[in-house]
């Protein structure tokens, strides 16, 4: 570690997404290269031109929450709370007294309560009603999930929500990391959530004409766009000495964070902005390119992202790019937009802890513009000691995390 500051480790992880309702089932799906993307089951799906997505299946909100909670929890909040519950249980941490004042929750989401917006717009516009449920605002607000997590676990320190489109979760986790590193906080619940798979949420994306109608095939020459997903992942980030003193199991270390803005275009990515973010994360972590064994790519499966991301990785890593593995797990769980970096961090933890590199599935044809080892179709066993997780958002906002094995 360079530059001083406290060390930050991860002591708990939780998730729900199209691959599984917890971390073990999600990692098993990633190891098996299973695809969570399928036909969308939602109201008015026949009026959508894109009818696939990585939807959370077999989910019954009533199995997890009571009537009063459901009245207040949008689907993105429910996902967050379920993931937070798992992360807290694994970590074994609890918050009281001064400890709770030095701990908080920073989460990412791009859309917040999109389902709540959608349902209530139907009520007033489609059904012509002039009255909506009294809790519409507290249910749809982007910070609802963070607030409910803070209430559930007595987190009284810095708490808020970050919305930077597809980089939201990485920005959230990067800020949580910095707060512990600086000594401001002792532990943070962090990650992100998205639940945008409703008629309006998919219809809006259709408009840009960047969505695939059949599959997400990152880095493949025949890729034809991104596929949306939904779900959440939440982690317990904790100051290293604190975790050690209480005998917590350490999943991995968060070692660096880089964030930049392209300042160029509202939708087209810039390789330079991505490069600076990767270099920034490695610099803070004190890691050289040769030490990075794996990158969890942003890898959306669009023509523009994958080409630009590979160019920036080749440029940053130089000759070391030949020994680097880079995969996009969006091929399996879809693009969770504001929650995506959080679910993808699970693949990074699996690489560091279990020595298993999640594959890029759906890979069919090599693309000379993506000439890196993209771990096509099948997971691979490999020992890696440091990894990066990339997120490059619309609006040119880039956020990259660097992690090390515990």
């Amino acid at each position, binding site marked *: 570690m360079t530059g001083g500051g406290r060390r930050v480790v991860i002591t708990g992880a939780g998730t729900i997404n199209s691959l599984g309702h917890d971390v073990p089932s999600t990692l098993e799906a990633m190891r098996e290269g299973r695809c969570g993307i399928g036909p969308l089951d939602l109201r008015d799906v026949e009026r959508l031109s894109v009818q696939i997505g990585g939807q959370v299946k077999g989910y019954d909100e009533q199995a997890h929450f009571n009537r009063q909670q459901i009245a207040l929890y949008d689907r993105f909040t429910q996902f967050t709370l379920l993931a937070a519950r798992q992360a807290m249980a694994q970590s074994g941490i609890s918050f009281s007294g001064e400890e709770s004042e030095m701990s908080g929750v920073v989460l990412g989401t791009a859309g917040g309560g999109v389902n709540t917006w959608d349902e209530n717009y139907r009520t007033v516009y489609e059904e012509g009603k002039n009255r909506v449920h009294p809790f519409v605002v507290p249910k749809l607000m982007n910070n609802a999930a963070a607030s409910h997590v803070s209430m559930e676990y007595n987190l009284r320190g810095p708490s808020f929500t970050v919305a930077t489109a597809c980089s939201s979760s990485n920005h959230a986790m990067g800020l949580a990391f910095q707060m512990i590193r600086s000594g401001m906080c002792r532990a943070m619940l962090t990650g992100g959530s998205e639940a945008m798979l409703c008629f309006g949420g998919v219809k809006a994306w259709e408009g840009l*004409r*960047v969505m695939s109608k059949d599959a997400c095939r990152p880095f493949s020459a025949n*890729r034809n766009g991104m596929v949306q997903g939904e779900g959440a992942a939440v982690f317990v980030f904790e100051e290293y000495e604190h975790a050690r003193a209480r005998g917590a199991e350490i999943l991995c270390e968060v070692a660096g964070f880089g964030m930049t803005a392209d300042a160029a275009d509202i939708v*087209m990515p810039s390789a330079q902005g991505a490069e600076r973010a990767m270099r920034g994360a490695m610099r803070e972590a004190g890691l050289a390119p040769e030490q990075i064994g794996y990158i969890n790519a942003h890898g959306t499966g669009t*023509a523009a992202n994958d080409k630009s991301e590979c160019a920036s990785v080749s440029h940053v890593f130089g000759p070391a790019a030949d020994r680097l593995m880079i995969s996009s797990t969006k091929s399996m769980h879809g693009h969770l937009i504001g929650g995506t970096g959080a679910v993808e961090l699970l693949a990074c933890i699996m690489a560091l802890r279990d020595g298993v590199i999640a594959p890029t599935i759906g890979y069919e044809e090599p693309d000379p513009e993506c000439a890196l080892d993209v771990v096509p179709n099948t997971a691979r066993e490999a020992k890696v000691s440091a990894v990066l997780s990339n997120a490059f958002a619309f609006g040119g906002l880039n956020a990259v995390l660097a992690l090390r094995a515990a």
Partner: protein
Amino acid sequence: MELRDKVIAIIAEQAMLEPGDVSLDNSPADLGIDSLGLVESIFAIEETFDISVPFNANAPEESEFDISSVAAIVAAVERLVQKQHASA
């Protein structure tokens, strides 16, 4: 207004040019229309002619909608109007 003139008017508006300055052999790029501008023009074409245009920005060359020149776009719109309004 003829179909061709309507298409040219949509493209001219996107390019911030007078319709008279748009020639049939121009490509969208010649007129300074980027990928986002193209997607917006296609939306305007769909709304104007009440048609659905098959176009994926990830693989424009593989879409059934030829965007290589203004003339190609006009021809593609003519075909779609004929096809989609005949079946309606």
